[in-house]
């Protein structure tokens, strides 16, 4: 502790983060030297950066946890999987959003570098081993997202959404910080391992810790968008530019999952009995409200927002089980949810064209007539989100339900399955519009070849994972067991 010693071995676990930071700065500089026509070079640089860091993150660790930077940072199997997934999701988001961004003049170095910095924030959250790192990662991510929402300056809706997002996000951060400071008071440390160790010990104060926990859970619920802290989700999803919505709706969920895992499962595992009850309440409210209110929506982005709320409720079901099995199934849930969300918003972006956003449900009317394949893609996604086999959404739901059941939440399981039928209704309406109604016009579907190919692969993956879920499930189970 006396002298600063930095060796390569100390930095090694964080190579992916360091590389991403460097590449993001390179991109920021490179953007200054390209003229308007060569924006695509910058775009591909961003994609290459994300893929390179995903490769690095995937290759770097073995099966052990490496804690470095004086207990600030941990690279364990769980973080490895989640980082790769988050980076890939960010890259896919950019590919899907490229045409849209270009059309609206937003395919700029700013958007791309903010995406990279946001991804960096996610990685920091995923690898955090200290409340301070956790918080800084969260703020880094959130700040980028606020800016990305506001970047569409000419849209009043986007500006309003950015404002709401910022104010509520700041409030949530405040709550988190307050809760964390209480936990510091109770345990005398911000280090996750030390907090966990001292929680059961004599030196800690149980009611102070529980007091802090309430605020931490409230902050988490804000970030996840669980009812009753969900108010920002529909407005932000609807108001933000579609690529930004996709960016917010996909990769950060993985980081949020890691955030919950680090805070609740790892640091505050000793208070499990307390937070499980709180999460149960959040889950009940989210699953109920998300599914019921989604029925009334006519805007697809807003509908997907409420769907996201209910999906976060299901995610909480897995976490509140408080077992390795539950965490692993929650991890499986979040990974597959991100996959489905990418495809759903990818479809909106595919159908959008100049002066037409394709974000109303009506815009999908008669899609089957316009493109059989992409109607099928949307069908798979809709059924997967609804949790109908054989798409992967069903397995994910089953996994968390089974974990919650084993933890003794039988009533919650019955409630959740009943609500998921209610939820099936609005996805059905989408399918009905696509297949059973006549299109307004027989416009062919545009889109770049790379995007169409990726979207197809994405949908096939949703289907294939539903049939062969074994490997991914094992991966999640092994990652969770090795990391906790």
């Amino acid at each position, binding site marked *: 502790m006396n002298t600063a010693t930095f060796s390569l071995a100390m930095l090694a676990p964080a190579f992916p983060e360091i590389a991403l930071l460097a590449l993001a700065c390179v991109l920021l500089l490179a953007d200054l030297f390209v003229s308007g026509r060569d924006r695509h070079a910058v775009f591909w640089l961003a994609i290459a950066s994300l893929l390179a860091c995903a490769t690095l993150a995937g290759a770097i660790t073995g099966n052990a946890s490496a804690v470095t930077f004086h207990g600030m940072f941990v690279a364990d199997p769980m973080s490895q999987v989640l980082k790769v997934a988050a980076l890939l999701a960010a890259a896919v988001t950019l590919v899907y959003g490229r045409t849209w961004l270009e059309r609206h003049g937003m395919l700029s170095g700013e958007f791309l570098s903010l995406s990279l910095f946001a991804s960096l924030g996610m990685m920091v959250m995923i690898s955090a081993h200290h409340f301070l790192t956790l918080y800084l990662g969260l703020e880094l991510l959130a700040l980028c997202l606020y800016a990305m929402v506001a970047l569409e300056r000419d849209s009043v809706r986007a500006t309003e959404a950015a404002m709401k997002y910022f104010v509520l996000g700041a409030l949530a951060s405040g709550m988190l910080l307050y809760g964390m400071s209480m936990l510091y008071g109770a345990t005398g440390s911000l280090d996750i391992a030390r907090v966990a160790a001292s929680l059961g010990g004599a030196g800690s104060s149980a009611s102070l810790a529980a007091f802090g926990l309430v605020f931490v859970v409230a902050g988490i619920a804000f970030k996840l968008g669980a009812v009753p802290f969900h108010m920002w989700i529909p407005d932000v999803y609807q108001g933000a530019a579609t690529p930004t919505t996709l960016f917010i709706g996909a990769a950060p969920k993985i980081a949020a999952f890691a955030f919950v895992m680090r805070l609740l499962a790892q640091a505050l595992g000793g208070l499990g009995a307390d937070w499980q009850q709180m999460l149960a309440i959040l889950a009940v409210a989210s699953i109920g409200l998300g599914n019921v209110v989604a029925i009334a929506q006519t805007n697809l982005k807003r509908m997907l927002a409420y769907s996201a709320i209910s999906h976060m409720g299901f995610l909480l079901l897995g976490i509140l089980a408080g077992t390795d099995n539950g965490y692993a199934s929650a991890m499986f849930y979040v990974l597959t949810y991100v996959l489905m969300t990418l495809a759903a918003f990818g479809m909106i972006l595919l159908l959008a064209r100049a002066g037409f956003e394709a974000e109303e449900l009506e815009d999908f009317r008669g899609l*089957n007539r316009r493109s*059989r394949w992409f109607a099928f893609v949307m*069908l798979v996604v809709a*059924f997967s989100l609804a949790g*109908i*086999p*054989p798409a992967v959404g*069903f397995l994910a739901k*089953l996994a968390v*339900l*089974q974990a919650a*059941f*084993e933890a003794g939440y*039988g009533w919650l*399981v*019955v409630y959740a*399955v*009943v609500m*998921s*039928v209610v939820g*099936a*209704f609005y996805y*059905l309406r989408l*399918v*009905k519009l696509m*297949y*059973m109604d006549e299109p307004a016009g027989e416009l062919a579907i545009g889109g770049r070849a790379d995007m169409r190919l990726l979207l197809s692969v994405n949908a096939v993956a949703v289907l294939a994972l539903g049939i062969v*879920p*074994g490997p991914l*499930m*094992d991966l999640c*189970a092994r990652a969770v067991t090795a990391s906790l």
Partner: protein
Amino acid sequence: MADSTLLSLVLYLPVAGMFAVAAVPAGREGAVRALTLGAMLLQFALSLVLYAHFDPAVPGLQAATHAPWIPAWGVTYSIGLDGYNILLVLLTTFLGPLVTAGAFSAITKDVKLFYAMVFLIQFAMLGTFVAQDLFLFYLFWETMLIPMFLMIGIWGGERRIYATIKFFLYTAFGSILMLAAVIYLVYSLWATTGITSFAFADLYKARLPLEAQQWLLAAFALSFAIKVPMVPFHTWLPDAHVEAPTAGSVILAGVLLKMGTYGFLKLGFPLFPDATRLAVPLLSTLAVVSIVYGACLALVQEDIKKIIAYSSISHLGYVMLGLVSLDLLGIQGAIVQMVSHGLVAAGLFLMVGMIYERCHTRELAAYGGLAKLLPVYSVFFLILTLASVGLPTTSGFTGEFLVLMGAFAAGWRDSAGGSSYALWVAAAAVSGVVLGALYMLRFAQRFLFGAERVPHGPVGDLNLREGAILAAIVAAVFWLGLFPDSAMKRTELAAREYQELVSAPRQPVTKLTGTLPAPEAAR
């Protein structure tokens, strides 16, 4: 070729067919139709081989394939034939080519998608029947919803959207509660025996306290009863039938409804025997109510599709009655009745479809004297009507007669034990036969005889394709009526096994004390 390979071939042929249809270039609708029919005929031929190879003397699974699938959950991929499903598999593959050929002229919109959906539904139905793992079963069970939803919704009648969403939500609601029950069941199997498994064979060993059995049976039964459908869960059926295209109605009546009764036979009752035995009075009452109520409603319908739809409710009541009689004859009768109803109802729906294509109305009042106008059509119609009524030499007779025998046997058995309720139930069920004769003969009389009139006449009689379809069905009806032995021989062991499973108590021997491994130690 080994039988297990053959079974996999039969099961996955529709998947291959689906891809093949998708690959046919747009506009080549004739090729799509020919390809589908060819694949379906091949599938039927292969399943006939399976049927012939099926050894009635061997208990348990034949032509089985087992492979690990999701090891973490103990889910296995396991399929196979046994006495429970052999006839239903044959029925499904038999109806496949008929449905395909029957839709040649009726479906002109989006032909490729239609036949892809026919393939998908065929795959899901076969999969549901041959699955020997609860997880796999559930997967196929739910997968079935998607193509049916699209089929009614895209190619259906005027109120198709309402009908298809009602169908979907009803069945989805039922099956989702079953999912919750499945989770509970698998968990308690693990908690009591330490085995994590979804395999039917393992689940039969789960010992559950009576109260748990009752809840689980209720959840399973709700799901299956909606599918059957039993009164009072039947209201989706008339809507779905009336609005579905002919092919949809045929699949629905021919095979899909049997999923419910098959579910009871294979899962609902044998998994929870103690609860089942307690619930027999309730279930048999509901079965008789379905028989009588369905028949009464069929009697007053003016829409010819609705008559057949309500008659389905009535006929499946017999199946339920046979299953809860717990008498060997009754059980076998129930299985035969499933197949018989599959054939007869499918035939009648096809015939309604044929006349609808010519006259574009389903109003019974619009028709009359078809016997003179369409003699060939009328002959087939009369045969199927009589089979539906249960005339001896047809399959309907075999099924209903055995079921009633079983119901009375159960009645005498119970009355020897001091309760005459089952006897009353059996007696009430007989009235269903009379009512059945009443509504079908009323239907045939107004339809075939009397003043000759058809809307949009003059109409031509059956063409060769239609004649061949109906001839095949009539042949099968007579085969099952005259030579039921071949079929019943194959189901006998299964019926016995079912009887034993449901009759033997299976509550926990002790109050889960030290004799059983504690859950933690087991894992």
